[in-house]
Each structure stands twice: as C-alpha cells, then as structure tokens.
C-alpha cells in the first residue's frame, strides 16, 4: 500500500506517496524527478545508483525508501551543497564538489552513465580520508563499474580533488 513518506533529500523535506519497501532509486527518479542517480542493475552490483544516506554511500536501487526517513539523503545534485556545508562554505549556489570539478579537468567520462555513483563514492572516500593513496582509492572504488574503461582517469581525478581539498 502506498504510504506517505517524509524524506530529506538534498537538504529539502519532500513528501511522497510510496510504499516503504519501494527502492529509494524509484522515488528519487520518478517522484522527485532527479537525474543524478541512475538505474544500472537493480542488484546493488554496479554503483550507478549510489547516493549518500547520512554521509554513507548506499545503493539506492535496493535501499528501501522507508529506511531513508529521518536521515539525510544526498544525490549527485546535492553533492556540491553537501560539500559546502561540510567545509563551512556558503551553501547557496555552491560550486561543484572538488571531485566533480576534477573529473571535468581530467575529461574523465565517456558515456558518463556511471559517474553519478563514482562522484558519490569518491566524495565519501575523501570525507573519510583526505589523502588516500592510489591503492586506497582503488580499494574504495572497486565496487563501482565503468564499462567505458575510464578507471585510470577517475583515479587521477580523485587524486587531483584530494590535492585541491587539502589546499
């Protein structure tokens, strides 16, 4: 049965009519009209759908929307503001998260379909570990797939973003 769910998504309170066991991804895409998280497998295997829930990366394609109630959901769209808030900067009209900026500087994506999940996971990593080694980057990112084979440029972008964030 459809319930009224109250979700905090990208800093805003949103009410949607959906069963609590609906995967969060469908609510984000279909009810809230977001385009950052992508459907890739529905099996939590690829990472295209990743979002942050209370700062931790989860696979929205299997994460029940009901479980997100009372928590902060951050999608790719909200990543710049999430980062600005954490770093004490102005949240209004924030610049891209440093990892997004670095992905552009590295001209990393090809089709780009996996990049929402990549940016989310990389943001989680850099929040935990401001100076990751290449091995730590690979270990953190290894659950995210990229069919175009842009892995080397994603690693380079994360490295570049870490440097930028350290100042």
């Amino acid at each position, binding site marked *: 049965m459809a319930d009224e769910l109250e979700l905090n998504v990208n800093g805003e309170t949103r009410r949607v009519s959906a069963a609590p066991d609906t995967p969060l991804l469908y609510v984000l895409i279909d009810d809230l009209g977001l385009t950052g998280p992508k459907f890739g497998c529905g099996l939590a295997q690829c990472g295209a759908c990743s979002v942050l829930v209370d700062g931790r990366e989860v696979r929205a394609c299997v994460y029940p929307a009901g479980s997100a109630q009372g928590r902060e959901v951050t999608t790719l769209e909200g990543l710049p503001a999430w980062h600005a808030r954490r770093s004490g900067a102005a949240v209004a009209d924030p610049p891209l998260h440093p990892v997004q900026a670095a992905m552009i500087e590295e001209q990393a994506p090809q089709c780009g379909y996996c990049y929402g999940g990549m940016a989310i996971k990389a943001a989680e990593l850099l929040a935990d570990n401001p100076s990751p080694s290449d091995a730590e*980057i690979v270990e953190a990112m290894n659950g995210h*797939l990229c069919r175009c084979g842009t892995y080397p440029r994603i*690693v380079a972008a994360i490295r570049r973003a870490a440097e930028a964030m350290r100042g």
Partner: protein
Amino acid sequence: MSAGVSRRDLLKGGGALLVGFSLADAALAQPGPPQGPDRNRIDSWIAIHADNTATVLIGYVELGQGCTTALPQVAAEELDLGLDQLRTIAHETDVTPYQGGTYSSSAIARGRPQVQLAAAEARQELLRRAAQRLGAPVEALTVERGVVSAGDRSVTYGELVGDQPFEIAFTGTAKPKAPSNYRVIGQRAPRRDVAAKVAGTHEYVQHPRLPAMLHARVLRPRGQGAYGSPPRVLSLDENSIAGIPGVRVVRLRDFVAVAAPREWDAVRAARALKIEWEHGETLPEKSALYDHMRCSAEAETVVRAEGDTAAALSGAAFTATFEGETPYQAHAPMAPNCAVADVRDGEARVFCASQDIYALRTALAGLLELPADAVTVRFAESAGTYGHSLYDDVAMAAALLSRELGAPVRVQYMREDEHGWDTFGPAHIGKVVVGADSAGKLVGYTYDGWQHSWSFTETTDQLARGTAARSWPMGPSRSVNPAVCGGMYAIPNLRLVDHPLPGAPYLRAAWLRSPLDLSFAFVSEQAIDEVARQAGLDPVEFRRRNIADLRWRGVLEVAIEASGWAPADSRPRGGDIATGRGVGLGTHLAGWGGAVAEVEVNRSTGRVRVTRLWGALDAGCAVNLAIVEAQIVGQLVQTVSRMLYEEVRFDRTGVTSLDWSSYPVARFADCPEIVPIVVQRLDRPSSGAGEEVMAAAAAAIANAFCDATGKRMRTFPFTPDRVKAALAA
C-alpha cells in the same frame, strides 16, 4: 526534455543548447524522404544565426566517443568560427541529415568529410555574399570568428545570412582548407558533454517523462535459447498480479509485458506475474559448442587468395600452426536499454538510443504498419553500448506497447533482460598456419575461420509477430578480416577462408566493438610469435622484417619505444609469479594499431594481471587528440576485460550469465598502467579511432602470457582454471 513536442518546437527550443535559436527553420523542418534532409543542400547541415553563431546538424550520435565535439571542430575549422560559436542539435529523423549509422568507427572517418564539405560550401557562399557587400574580391577577404574583413571594412556571417536559410544546393566547387592552415583540427578541445554528465544534468534516454506515461517491463524467460527457437507462452495468469494497482498486461502472441503508472509497480508486477513458457533445450552443450560449429559449417568461402600457399608452406624453413576457440561476449552496457514511445492517431514518436535512427524508423514503420513519414525517431544517449545491444529491440517494445495501450510508454529493460537477451559478439574458431624462410621472412599464411552470422530479427519482433529469425544480410557479418589476419605483413602467398555457419541454433549475435578482431588477432599474432621463436628471432625484430607498410611500422616502433622493449630481456620466470611481455598488431577495418603488454601470472592461483599496457594508434588525422587518447585508454581497459574476464555462460536451455557477478568485467583493481599514443597525421584522411587498437592489445596480452609461462592460451578469457590447466599441460 520537452518530449512529445513538434519538430518546429524541437528546433526552436528543445534543449538548453538551443536557447536563443531563432533559425528560419521551415527549410529544416519539412518532412523529408525516408533518408532525411537533402544532403546536397547547405541548409541540411549548417544554420547561421543573427547573433553570428551557427548550428551544425550532425547525423552521427554521441556515444561517449566525443563526436559532438569533434565534428563541430571540423565545421569551426572550415567556417573560421570559434568552437564556442557553434552548437549542435539533438539527432532526429527528418531534422538532422542521414550520414549512416554510428558504427564501425564511422562518425569521424565518414562524418568528417561530409561536414567538412558542407561547411566549405557554406563558407564559399558566405564569402561570395561578403565580397558583394564589401565591394572587394573574395581573394582579398579574411575571416576571424565569423567576421569577414576587407581592409578596414567588415561584415559578420550573422549579418549576411542570419536567420535565413541559404536555399542553395552544393556547388561542387568549394574546396576545404589545406591541413597546413588548420587552427582547430588537431586541438585538444574539451568535450562539450562532459560537464553536464558530471553535474548530473545530461539528458539520457532513461530520462524523458511524458504526460500520462506508463512504465512497462517485458517478460521473457531468464536467458535466451537458440536464435531460431523463440520461447512460447503456455499459460498466463493475470490474477496473479491483481493486487498491484493500475497494472495492465499486454500480450501479442508471445510478447508479454506489464505496464503501470508507477514504475515500481511495473517492476513488481513483472516479478509476480505467473507465466509458463515453452522454452526447451535448444542450444548446443557449451562444452561441445566448438565441435558443433565445426560440424555445421556450410560451404567454405575464399575471402582472399594470393600466390600458392600450399607450396610456400611446404617449402618453408619454419612453420607454426595455431588453433584458437573464442567465446561469446556481451555488450553489457552499464544502463540496460530503455526507450519511450508515443504512438497515437496514426503517428509515432520514439525516443531511443539507436546507433541508426533512420534504419530504426524503417523497421518501426514496418512493425507498426505506418508510413515512414508518420514515424519520428529521436536519439538520446544511453550508457556506452559498444555495438548492437538491445536499443532497437526496446524501441520496438515501447512502440508496440504504446500502440496497444493508447498512451506514451517507457520501457526500461532490467539487468537480466539486457544480459540474457543481448545480441552477443559471436564465438569463433580460428586456425592459422604460418611459414617463414630461413631469413625470417614470411612466405605463406592461411587463416580458416568458423563463425555464424549476426541476427537480423529483433526478439520483440519475433515474439510479437512471429517474424522469422533472419540472418544479417550483409557479408562482413561473418567474415575473416583481411586487415587483421596477416594484412599488416608482406606475405606473398596468403589464403583466407570462411567457414560460415547458419545463425541457428546459436545465440543471438551482432557487432561488438571491434567485431571478432580480438579473436582474429589472438589466433594470428600468437602464430606469428611462434614462428618467430622457431626462427630464433625476437618477436619485434621478426615483425620488422615482415612489415612493408610504413604506417604499420610506425605504430610498432612507437609502441616499442614507449615500452622500452629490449631484445635480450631476462626477467626472472621462476617462482610463483611469472612475468612476461608481448607485442601485437591489429586494427578493425581501417587504421593501424600496435600494442605492448606486460603481465604477471600467478602460477599457484592461476590469476593473470595485466600490469602495463601501451597502445599506439594511427587513425590518420586525429581531429581531437585528447578524445583519441581517451578512446585508446578505453579500448585498452576493455581489452583487458575481454581477455581476462568476459564470457557468456549458457546451458542447453539458455544464457545463465545474467548479472555482473556471473558476467564479470574489469574493475578499478584490474586496470593496468596505461600509456595511449596517438600517431598524428593531419594531412591524411581520418580513419576512425573507436576500436582500432583492441586487436593489437589482445594479441599483446596473449603473447605476454606465453612469454611469462612458456605456454600458449588457446581460448580466452584467461580464467584461473584455464590458466592452471594450461600451465599443467
């Protein structure tokens, strides 16, 4: 996206790129013949706006390969406009010109001359008008960013043409610029689609939402059986989903789908619907696949025959015979395919990610029994497809469902649909015999290939209409590739033979990035290494002695130099970890690719790692160096994936590799250190850069494995079990 709007609206403001677009679009928006706007008219390609900017209409689709950046570079070069003054428009039938399907690395190879010519014609006409306006001869005019000057007087393109069509056909007299004058071609212009992709605002085919649109899911058995034996519905119990609100079931013969206003309800309904299939054991045993292929070959076809191969081989000082068997591999795009269709009142609008929207329109018109000019197909990007995945199949499904339901329908395939019903890159058997004389010169070469044809009939069409399983009508769908099978060497006696198989009872098949070339090079280049070993020659030195073509020699030398290859290599080969390095050459249809690989083989676990990979590509004129480098990196990573991990699994009933766990692909941790090298030749035609270095890399990896272990792999992927078996043999 403002989906479902008229063509005129699409031109006026269908996307962010078109803000302020005020072209007199009537000339572009006329319904055209099935092949789209007249390609011999400037207005079909170039529109000049009053604000001195321009739109270039491109008939190739963006697949992440960068053609919506590189083709505007071509136009900017000819028109002497800045790249920032040019925009593109979404690819749509009757709006953008037909340039051919976006496959076989054609977007730049074929698209560059087309766009170049159109832009040169436009420039010639603009200069003719400017000369009149300024009262100066054309020869005295200079152009900078669309400002035409004669001495101290100037006029802009926008003032000359702005918002009016050219209304002229090609003259045939326009001459493109000489490469020595290039200012934009060859530059590393940033890709125009990257920022939106990273920000999450790029519009993919998964995104359009139309008013009152229904979400649909198709029902098929999990994993296809043989191509010629589609499944049949034995029973269907609609009551099994009665508890899910608003769900409708559509059945057309054996095509079954569910649709609902809410997407999750459609997913739940597809899972819950009770359906019984006739889906028998139609496939060969996987373990007997290659024997089955050998036995079912039709009459052989000679692809190329030069000299007397039999005599040359029997008189050769050294001969090597090598036979390889290679697997079905999947496109497995990150996004399962998706399409949105609105079929009502005798008209159809379809949003999809087809590589050839004009061909799809023809197919949809047949499927829906509508005239072609009642069908509009608009492209939106999906995840990288790397060949013919299910984009046409899903578009057909959406179109049929919209017609049946009388509402716009979005069909999103699930992961198991995409992995299970893909048109796979087909399996192959290759047998090569190579002979060299005592001086290490190749004297004879034969290659026999066994492969079945590509599948022409989409599954939706088979199930919904009972359409027969036809084979792909064009020859190259199942032919040994002369460019890869010995084509890089000067061999006086050469014979290439196809052993074509019927398309049934095998898996569905179609082109997969660098179709069959990885298999051809895997077989052929291992035999070249083997005969070099017999001749006592370093594999690089042996290749040097047998290459006459300077461009093959070029990619070999730059890859070798970059990798620091030294002939007398003496790395330790004992211990648990064996290391080796290998070289390979290859291409797709045109272009020149060379690669060097370094691998580590763990003798006890059987695990293989590619540690370093150099790939050199001569694609003629690289319009955008950075994009070609990115293409090389992607090709090399994907080649590692295909050589080490990827294989479609099946039993006699159907495909069983239905997700990323049963069909593994390369991950971050599997990625070697990669060095892409572009051999830039501005004065040559562009020959394509999307798939021309994979065959070389596949061969280099195979040869590196043998260098490390002394054993040759006869199939891929190099899974631990296979590696351990090869090491024990």
